[in-house]
Each structure stands twice: as structure tokens, then as C-alpha cells.
């Protein structure tokens, strides 16, 4: 702090903080770094395959699609200071419900039904949030309970894999944009990001989300409806979870009650890798999307190298820890 030496009230007191570029680097450095990591992986990946780049890109986008949405859902909750362990199994419910009902639907009907399902997951997730806020039971406990509830519901809807979706609907995930080669799977992710998150980020509810995650007491003293905001965070996460479940149906073309299970913890991994603090209040969705691609691509690369899938998990886990540790060390340096 620079304070003027003279005690006369006429002297100006000015606070000069870090240089703007430093501040920008601290705020956005992690996000930029994750995207750079993703780009750095591309040449190695290309060196392992003989296929057309368009084709490879398409495969990556389709593979990563459900995780992208799941990670966005998790990120919203984590930013607001919570954590949602029920994302994967709620995705499973959406997957089996859509596959069972959409088999005989037209494309239009399927789209309308998708909107209905998204509304339902928003409500279901909002219910979870309401229970957390009203009972003051920790997020992790309530969402762990909901994990089992949705798992049971999914099995109740469909015991063994089956069902299907209209071909046009599938194309939303596995096609490309007017055969330009831009994968639809990437387009829908960025469309959801631009349409849902970007506007919210600049409105008061979006700020409230960060405020509640950053310091609940300060947020309350600033006049934020803390309970309302936390429930809202879960509802928004429900929207993304619905999209993630539909992405499962569209990309696989089938309903499977166990299809969502791996996504819960993978979404947490993507959130951490994407620069969202598990303590809440820090980070954004664009880094998390990049992290979802990094995780998916690293799995693809290990497969291409012919690594035993069991070892592949070991490598991936080690990678997450390594990246977060290095990132933590770097940010500590810039802080001091």
C-alpha cells in the first residue's frame, strides 16, 4: 500500500496493485495453460494415427462429449462451494429414459422430449440442492445418497441395455456441421457454453454463484440470497447433467443403466484439472471444457500406444496429480 506521508486530508491515498498483465495471468493463466497442454498433445496424437485429421477430430469430440457436459455440471456446483456425486447416475437415468421413449419418435418429437428431460433433471438436481440447504447436511453426503437413488431409478426404468434414438438425433452428436468437417459434438458443447454460461457469468446470479462459493458470510452480508443461489447452482448443474445424459444416448445410440457411473469422478477430475478450486469461488467453465478434452485425449493416446487399459488408468491418475501439483507450485510463485 502506498500512503501519502502528509496527514492533511487533501492528499490523495492511492492503492496500486499488481500490474494488469500479472493480474490477468493469475486470473486466466490456468485456463490458458490447460488449452496449451491440449494443443501440445495434438502432434504426438497425430503421430500415432494414420487417419485423416477430420476423422480423428470427430472421434475425439464424440468421445469427450458426455464428459464435457458432466464436467460443466460439476464445475457449476463446485464454484458455488459444493460438490455433486450424483451427476453420473442421474446421467444414467436420462440415458435409459430417453433411449426407451425415443425409439419410435420422430426427430422433432425427440427434440421436444429432450427439453422435457432437461427440465426434469434441473428439477431433480434442484431437489438435491434444496435438501442440502434445508437440512444443512454436507453436500457430499446428500449427493452420495442421491447417487444410489438415481442408480436404482435407472435400473428400474431399464434393467438391461436397450432402446434407441432417431438417426437424425444421433447425428447431433456424431455428425458434422453441414459436412464442413466441424464436429457437431464440439459445436453443441460450445453452443451450450455460449448460450447458458457466458450470459450468466455477466449477470448478478452468476456473480452470486462465485460470491457464495468464495465466502458465504461475506456473500450474505452483501445481501445475496445464499440458499437461493446454492439451489440455483444445483438446478443449472441439472441442466448440464441432462445434456450429458442425452449426449450419452445420442453418441451411443442405446440406453444402458450403468453408462453414467464413470462420469461422476471423471467430472471431478476435469474440474480440478480445469482450474476450478474445490474450495469454491475460483475458476471457469472454459478451462474445464479443455480439461475434459485433455482427459479424453490422454485416454485415446494411451489406447493408440497399445497400453493395457488397466495401466492406462494408472497413467491418467498420475497425470492428474502431476499437473495439479505443478500448477499449484506455479500459481504459488506468481502469488508471492
Amino acid at each position, binding site marked *: *500500500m502506498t*500512503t*501519502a506521508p502528509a*496527514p492533511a*486530508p*487533501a*492528499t*490523495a*491515498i*492511492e*492503492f*496500486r*496493485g*499488481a500490474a*494488469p498483465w500479472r*493480474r490477468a495471468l493469475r*486470473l486466466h493463466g490456468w485456463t490458458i495453460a490447460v488449452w496449451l497442454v491440449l494443443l501440445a498433445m495434438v502432434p504426438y496424437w497425430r503421430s500415432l494415427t494414420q487417419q485423416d485429421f477430420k476423422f480423428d477430430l470427430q472421434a475425439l469430440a464424440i468421445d469427450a462429449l458426455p464428459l464435457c457436459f458432466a464436467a460443466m455440471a460439476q464445475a457449476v456446483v463446485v464454484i458455488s462451494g459444493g460438490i455433486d456425486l450424483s451427476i453420473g447416475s442421474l446421467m444414467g437415468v436420462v440415458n435409459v429414459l430417453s433411449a426407451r421413449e425415443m425409439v419410435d419418435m420422430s426427430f422433432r418429437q425427440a427434440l421436444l422430449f429432450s427439453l422435457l428431460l432437461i427440465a426434469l433433471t434441473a428439477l431433480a438436481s434442484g431437489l438435491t440442492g434444496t435438501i442440502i440447504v434445508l437440512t444443512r447436511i454436507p453436500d457430499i453426503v446428500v449427493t452420495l445418497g442421491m447417487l444410489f437413488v438415481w442408480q436404482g431409478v435407472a435400473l428400474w426404468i431399464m434393467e438391461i441395455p436397450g432402446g434407441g434414438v432417431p438417426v437424425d438425433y444421433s447425428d447431433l452428436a456424431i455428425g458434422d456441421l453441414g459436412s464442413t468437417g466441424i464436429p457437431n459434438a464440439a459445436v453443441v458443447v460450445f453452443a451450450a457454453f455460449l448460450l447458458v454460461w457466458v450470459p450468466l457469468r455477466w449477470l*448478478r446470479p452468476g*456473480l*452470486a454463484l*462465485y*460470491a457464495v*462459493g*468464495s*465466502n458465504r*458470510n*461475506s*456473500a*450474505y*452480508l*452483501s*445481501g*445475496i440470497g445464499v440458499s437461493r443461489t446454492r439451489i440455483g447452482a444445483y438446478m443449472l448443474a441439472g441442466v448440464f447433467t441432462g445434456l450429458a445424459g442425452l449426449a450419452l444416448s445420442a453418441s451411443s445410440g442405446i440406453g444402458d443403466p450403468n453408462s453414467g457411473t464413470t462420469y461422476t469422478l471423471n467430472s471431478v477430475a476435469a474440474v480440478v484439472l480445469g482450474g476450478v478450486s474445490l474450495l469454491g*469461488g*475460483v475458476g471457469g467453465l472454459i478451462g474445464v471444457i479443455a480439461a475434459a478434452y485433455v482427459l479424453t485425449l490422454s485416454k485415446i493416446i494411451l489406447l493408440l500406444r497399445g497400453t493395457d487399459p488397466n495401466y492406462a488408468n494408472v497413467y491418467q491418475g498420475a497425470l492428474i496429480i502431476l499437473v495439479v501439483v505443478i500448477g499449484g507450485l506455479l500459481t504459488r510463485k506468481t502469488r508471492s
Partner: protein
Amino acid sequence: MEGAARRPLRVRSHAMNDHATPLLEVRGVAKHYGPVVALRSADLSVSPGEVHALLGANGAGKSTLVKCLTGVIRPDSGTISVSGRDTRARSPMHAARLGLSPVFQDPALVPDLSVAQNLRLTGSSIDAVRSQLAAMNLKVSFHELVGDLPLPILRMLDLARALIHDPQLLILDEITAALPSDLADRVFDVMSERREKGRSVLFITHRLAEVIANCDRATILRDGEDVGTMVPREGGEARIVEIMLGPEAARAEAAASERDGAAERPAAEAEAEPSEGAAVLEVDDVRVGGVQGISLTLRSGEVLGLAALEGQGQDELFEALAGQRKLESGELRMDGKAFRPRHPYDAIRRRIVLVPPDRLLALLPQRSVRENVAAPLYNTPLRWGPINMREEGRRVRRAVDALQIDMRAARQVRRLSGGNQQKVTIARWLASGFAALLCNDPTRGIDVGTKRQVYALLRELAADGAAILFFSSELAEFPLVCDRVLTIYGGRVTAELPGAAADEETLLQAMHGLELDETAA
């Protein structure tokens, strides 16, 4: 038009002739937290265009009253009216709409957002805040993250944000405690501007000089009740201190009866025998956090008191001595040997032990009394071997007996009463043994009977040769417990008094950084 029609005419005419209708009228507001009474029954009346001080010792209920006024908590009973209208704020936002804008003790800005984002969050106009800051001659970049700004700047931002709505009543809860004097002066300028505009200010502070220089009236709280409203300029500090402490007679009587209870140490004996034990713990020009260079010597067989207002550096000093905080500069010597604790373990190994102000910091709340008392023992006799249950049991029993801990709810420490929990924190060190005992407010929130037991215990320990450093927020305890008392203000020692001479008036004077009369020192 409609609003004017709805408002009763008489209120407006009352407001015309100034002091007839108080702006804020508080009657009998009370608040309990479980069995703890935070506010017994407080009255407060603030006139339009008045700068009103709210005074009282730590725990007198000032902050609780502010929280009731601003809708942070709901009072159990009592009425609050603003401009003659009965009202009760439901939230800080609602309070602001009623014309009561607070600047809280805790910063109300969210650390991970920038200043501009924080303002947008509360719907405050950025331009209005900027011009308000300019009026106070302050410049802050609004792109800065709040977490990166120093505390004094945050307080000024909070103030600027509260001012943009031109509130009827501006409530400042200890805003000057964290401010350097040049910024504090700006707050006082704001206060007199408010007065000129016919607006009111409720000003809470521990610094009496600020009250006398800037406030029209002062209401004083003691033990959750208002005990008087006065004009500070007329009475001066002596009068304020007197009201803060209670009537002379009652005070003397209380002191006498407590002295009987803690009759372990006849005053005459203490004075006749100057305590000149061996130096156990020496602190040499230590700087850490708010501590601006403190030197002291703690001798064996004495209780050395530290008296200070809240936040004068005493907490940091205790933490540094106990190894929880690294020294910035200066030296510590234990039994003549220099040491720099980097971890509480380093301090405990040298037999320097701490009783922290918050009991729950020291205890394992879910575990039994026995485990809690025995926990520090696990460090010493057979660190890697099996626990010697018989030896442990014997030591624990001795400590529990010495302190008369109520063992009825001994299975989980969190079920014990506050007083018994406090005894357990001391019993831990009785069982393990120590050379220097650091007590940071050991009697906070415990009843009178237990307090007396603690006083007697501390005197007994000192008589057995222990060296005890003792801080208390209750000034009446110093003459009862201490051989010597140091007062601290602004991170420095301002006076040293013999225990017997450390009466509350003298202490308060020195604790406010005022020069003592020759006779008192």
C-alpha cells in the same frame, strides 16, 4: 404522491422540530445463544443529525446489537423503530432499504471477485462509489481482486459502498480498529459531513479519544444492558470509564468479594516479597504480525499479566511463543538458551505450553476427558512404545482431581459445560508438566465459581515455581492473579504495573495508549 399521502402527517411535523422523534429507537432488545446471554435488554436512541457512539467492554453486546439492527440475526424480544415506525430488518439488504447502512467488522466484500464485480453483485452504482472514494480522496483500481487489497482499503471501500445510498443512519462497527490514522481521519470527516447533512451515525470503537473528539452522545453497554447515555465532551474519559465499569461502590464490593474467594494470596505478602525468581522465558524485541517490538521477561514463580484491548498484538505474541507463528524478528530465550520454535512441538518440548482463548482449538471434542488430558503425554515418555495405561491413568486422575473436573459427561468433552472444558485445557498441561504456562484469556465465558478456582490454581502453580503469562479480557482479574502487569497498545508495551496497583482505571488508561499519572505508575 401516494407515498406522501400514506405517511402520517404528524411524523413529518415531528421531524421538523428535530429531536422530538428519534431517528432510531431501540427498546429492550435481547438475544440469547443457547444458555449464553449476548444481549440482556438494550435501549438506544439516536436523533437525526447526531453522531452517536456505542461503547462497552469486549462482550458487552455491541456487535450483537448491531447485528440485530441490521437484520443479520433476529432478536428474541424488544422493539426497534425507525423514524417512529416499528420495524424489524429481515436481512442486511432490507435494513439498507429502511435507511440503516452498516459497515460490519467482518469485511462484506467477496475475496475472489474484483471490486467492480462486488459492486455489481450488490447492485451498487460503480460511478457513485468511485465519486464517493474521490470525495474521500482515495484511488483504488476497481479491477483489483478484493482478496489482493489490504484490509484498511477494504474498510474504506465498505464505507464508500454504504454511503452511496445516503443512509439515514450509518453504522460503523469498529471501523477505525484496522485503519492507520490518516485513513481514520477521513472516516471522521465523513462523520461530520453526515451530521451537517442531517443524517446520523452510530459509531462503535474502543478508542475513547475518538469518541470525545467526534461524537455528540454516547450510549454505554455493560453485560448486555445499556447503563447510561452521556455527552462525551462533558464527561471526558474518566466519566466514560466510570460508567463502563459501573458505580464505584458496586465495583469495590465486587472486587472485595472476589478477593475473599481467591484468598490464596494476601496482598500484603505479595508486596512484601518482590518476585525475583530465575528468568524462564525471555522475549527480546519481538516483531510478529501486529507486535511492533515487545520485550519481556517471564520469571519462575510469578504470574505476569498482559492487559490490552482487542487486536493490539497479544494474540500474535501468544501464538509466536507457542510455536504457531514464525517470528519476523527478535529473539526468544528459554532458560537462557536461544530458541526459535517452528512448530508447537518445539515449544512443548521446551515445556512452554499454551491455553488458547478458544477451548475448541485445544480439545478433541468427540473424545473423552481422559484422552484429552493424556494427549500431550503421548509425546513424551515412550513415544514409540505402547501407551502405559496405568501411568497415564494415574496422571490424568491427579490432574482431574486437582481441578475438580465434573466427570459425569466425561465420555465426550463436547458435552461438558464451558467451564469444565476450560478446566480440561488446563488439566492437559498439569498432567504433562510444564515450565512456562501461557494463558490467553483462560476465564473467557466461564462462571464466577470456576473463575475463582482458576485464579487459585494459577497462584498455586506460581507458588510451586511455574512461570505464567496471563492475558484476560476481564480487567478485574489482573490485581487478583498477577504479580506484575504489562499493558500493550498498538503492538508495544505502554506501561508496567505491580499487580496490586493494576486497578481497572489505571489499566484502561494505559490500554488506550494514554500516559499514566506519575502517582499511578
